[in-house]
């Protein structure tokens, strides 16, 4: 889970979930009460990525 996904690709990460920002990859303080659903979705997406077969570095976008 990283914000600069090109770096993830360059180090050979195969399942990449793009995140929000460098100081708060899994969160967004500006969202206040809506931060939790966003965080939940991101981590669920990471779990989904681990359940998915990939052949090369793959970015798991929302939706």
């Amino acid at each position, binding site marked *: 889970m990283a914000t600069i996904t090109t770096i993830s690709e360059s180090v050979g990460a195969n*399942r990449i979930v793009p995140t929000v920002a460098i100081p708060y990859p899994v969160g967004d303080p500006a969202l206040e009460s809506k931060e939790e659903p966003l965080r939940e979705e991101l981590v*669920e997406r990471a779990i989904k990525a681990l359940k998915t077969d990939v052949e090369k570095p793959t970015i798991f976008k929302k939706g």
Partner: protein
Amino acid sequence: MKKILYYVNQFFGQIGGEDQAHIAPVYKKEAVGPAMGFAKMLEGEAEIIGTLICGDNFFNEHNEEALAFIKDINEQEKPDIVVAGPAFNAGRYGVACAGVAEFFALEAGIPVVTGMYEENPGLEACRGISYVVPTTDSAGGMRKALPTMAKIAVKLAKGEEPVAEEDGFFLRGIRETVFSDKIGSERAVEMLLKRLRGEEFETELPMPEFDNVEPAHAIADMSKAVIALVTTGGIVPHGNPDHIQSASAQKWGKYDVSKLEMLKGDYETIHGGYDPVYANEFPDRVAPLDQLVHLKKEGAIGDVYKYFYTTTGTGTAVGNSRKFGQEIGKELKEAGVDGVILTST
């Protein structure tokens, strides 16, 4: 004429194979093995004064003793250039060549030429301090490697500076100031024009090569899977008990989080490369333990691995990062962890 000292292992030193890998170093005042072919390529600029032969196991297991011997030979013979290998993809031989390079290049100040396959574990240690020619992974590439190595040795003997692009050795990762008669913007525009015209152009800043890692299989049954949480975001228990560096990390830490619902309350960030306000307020924004605990309670994952692993990613050397990754990966694998969420800032 310049004097070259040659280093080989027991095999190329014609003493024997694996059964002789334990032999202590010996010195012969003649060219042995690859040094014989090498001697013929020196264009009268240098000569081989002798060959150091050491068993690969001996060099790695009795490193100090091996180096003490080599040091003595250096004092007796006072070579101008040292040539080691090529080691191809032989790991112990490559590490020994790197050890030889470290002594001569760093301590004795004598230039070292060697050759290795790109995946040889000795490469990282010596590419920055010696001239390492890329070779094939097996000794079949000897005929191609020796002339390239010899050409570099000849240049050194003549007092010339070998150049990676011309002389064909691994880039050393050394940045030097060079003067150009054109300023950067002119050179950039020239490069752009060449590109637009479809002409050849050469970048001044080659991009690093991408690592390729074979993807792990998908996790078949997530409801039974153990998931570990790892971060390079510098999240540590309050007070940073293991003194993990806030930049250029030299180590990583692991902490038992099996009794926690979230990192908030017990953890903070020591990362020196981003604004820490948001992570200190709520460290799970960087390492989402709370979400993993939640998924465990829901039964979506089997368990959260009891240890959380952490280090600082900013300014940390690639070599260290690789080492941390291998060490952490090994622990997680041995613990039977099925999947890892690695967050980076």
